[in-house]
């Protein structure tokens, strides 16, 4: 009876539960960071990794597609971690942006976004070909998924690809997004991801808003607005290029 009451209290106040839960996970992560890794692993990097791990178990337990948020008492995690609040917080980070850094933004952003979409697309397309896909629609859809997990299904639907191929393109995009979240803090020193310009290029090349948001949060939160600024254009550009120009290129190459 006590458990039922507790579960009701948590479920009926879902977003408040999410506030508490995220605070708890953050506290545990920072404790692990200082006491077990001697500060080597950043607290927020551990928190993001823990979040992903719990998302895996959430998906395993419920069979749903929203990770931990499919468990009734954690539905608030889905709201707090959804696109609405994520984008609200991303916009807020722009408040501290230095206008000086944004002077060349247009050029850097445009180059890296278009280049990034094409680069990811062709890597995905080449891997698809290596795995034996030989029709232009499947190759294009998988390539589009390598851009982001939104570009994949949008392109697949536009070209009427099969549902299996569309699901595969989503999986490619999800792997990319999750990898970017986890790996970015570790590779940041080697690729000089420590200033506004390189953060913009990073956002433009990776393009996955979740990946870029998570990766930069764990690396240096001051870089978030610069990376997010370019990443936010990526999915739109991908949805524009993949089913049109890039599809035509693939079709010309395949036949």
């Amino acid at each position: 009876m006590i458990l039922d009451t507790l579960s009701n209290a948590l479920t009926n106040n879902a977003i408040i539960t999410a506030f508490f839960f995220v605070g708890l996970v953050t506290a545990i992560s920072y404790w692990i960071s200082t006491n077990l890794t001697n500060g080597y692993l950043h607290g927020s990097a551990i928190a993001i990794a823990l979040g992903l791990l719990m998302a895996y178990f959430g998906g395993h337990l419920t069979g749903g597609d929203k990770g931990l948020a499919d468990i009734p008492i954690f539905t608030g995690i889905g709201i707090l971690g959804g696109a609405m609040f994520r984008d609200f917080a991303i916009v807020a980070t722009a408040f501290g942006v230095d206008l000086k850094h944004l002077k060349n933004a247009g050029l850097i952003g445009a180059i890296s976004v278009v280049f990034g979409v094409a680069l990811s697309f062709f890597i995905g397309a080449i891997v698809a070909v290596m795995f034996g896909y030989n029709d232009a629609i499947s190759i294009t859809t998988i390539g589009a998924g390598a851009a982001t997990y939104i570009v994949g299904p949008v392109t697949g639907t536009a070209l009427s690809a099969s549902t299996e191929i569309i699901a595969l393109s989503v999986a490619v995009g999800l792997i990319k997004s999750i990898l970017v979240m986890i790996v970015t803090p570790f590779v940041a020193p080697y690729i000089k991801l420590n200033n506004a310009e390189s953060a913009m290029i990073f956002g433009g090349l990776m393009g996955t808003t979740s990946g870029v948001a998570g990766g930069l949060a764990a690396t240096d939160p001051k870089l978030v607005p610069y990376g997010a600024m370019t990443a936010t254009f990526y999915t739109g550009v991908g949805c524009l290029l993949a089913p049109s120009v890039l599809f035509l290129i693939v079709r010309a190459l395949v036949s």
Partner: protein
Amino acid sequence: MVVYGVALLAFCMLTGIFLGDLLGQLIGVDANVGGIGIAMLLLIFMANIKNSFFEINLLTKSGVNFWSAMYIPIVVAMAAKQNVLAAISGGWMALIAGVLTVIISFMMIPVLYKLIKRN
């Protein structure tokens, strides 16, 4: 007042998303094109306005800064709601395509950075 900051943030985000949707329709894409980027530019622009009608004071600032500080906790929640299971069950092709894309994109960052710095 603190709520002015929150409202300003909301105004920028809604305007950005609206313009991003319009931009998408204009170029014939079923997606929002840069809405959040536009919202960020709008916020930066408004933060730099200084006149007698409109000036952002300390309390207003704290309304924006709160949400900026909530960024990492929100990202942790975002991580916890990812479809990690689907990513892992995508099989070898999805894994290899995803990993290769990330590795090569990372390697291109310093290359592109040098190219842009040179010009």
